[in-house]
């Protein structure tokens, strides 16, 4: 299965052939997939979820958000879920997105990778008392 990720500092897309062998997801990709893991969201809701989940340490503007969504759609990690009104937000019609099975697998793989890194950091007492 092939898909595109934005990797590295240049933001240039790279292609890989195996989800499990892929390079780390960029923060924007990871946060968007995390936000969609709970269910369908429109763009502004994704931005709010990301800001809340990261305690405002990571924020995305509309340009970064939709550029990343475009690449995630091309990579089949995210799918469009139609347009409808959001009653919590002045009833404007909004474009919704959902995570695909590939996207769910990608975010799980990335979370596991980060978990193993945290485990290593804990063993080295970089995060306070090492876990037993």
């Amino acid at each position, binding site marked *: 299965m092939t898909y595109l990720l934005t990797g590295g500092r*240049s*933001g240039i897309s790279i292609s890989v052939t195996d989800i499990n062998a892929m390079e780390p997801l960029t923060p*924007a990709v990871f946060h968007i997939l995390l936000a969609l893991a709970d269910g369908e969201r*429109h*763009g502004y809701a994704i931005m709010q979820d990301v800001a809340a989940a990261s305690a405002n340490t990571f*924020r995305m503007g*509309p340009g*970064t958000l*939709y550029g990343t969504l475009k690449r995630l759609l091309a990579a089949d990690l995210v799918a469009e879920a139609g347009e409808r009104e959001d009653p919590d937000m002045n009833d404007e019609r*909004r474009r919704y997105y959902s995570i695909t099975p590939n996207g769910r697998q990608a975010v799980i793989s990335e979370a596991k990778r980060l978990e193993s890194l945290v485990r290593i950091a804990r063993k080295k007492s970089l995060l306070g008392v090492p876990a037993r």
Partner: protein
Amino acid sequence: MRIHEWLYRILIRLYPADFRREYQAPIQQAFRDQLRNADNPVKLATLWIWTLSDTARSVTTEHLERWQSMKIAAYLLFVTILILLGRYELRTDDTGMVVFFILVSAFILTWMNPQRRWLWSFVGWCVPAAEQFWGEPLPGLPDLKSRLMLLAFVTFVGFLGSFAAALLKRSTTNMLPKT
């Protein structure tokens, strides 16, 4: 609020046309949502600083991505131009022009594809190749030894041009914002 939306609509014009066609409406909508929450001058100023930074970063990324996809067509066009310029360069019979032509060609090709900079070092070979093709031997090169020296010279110049481009590309790539 309308003036802020109008200003943002002007910023959106910086994105590539196909990106605007697809995402202009939701991008403007998200900005409007952010504007509603910016209910005092400080929040508004912060929003604009953030928006300008986000736009600069994402516009650069979108344009760079399109540049990547046009590479093959750009290579073919550039090689064609190189061959034609090689023909012109032969007529000038000027070493300075030879060096300039090879340096610029190697630089541009390496900028487009730094991974193949060793290949682009040989772009200067189009000069003696064009000479063979168009049947106009360069003066002062009657024997094999002098022709081999010419090949070594053009390879060295090509290497200089591609090496300089690779260095500059690496340093400018590191300056681009993350996505």
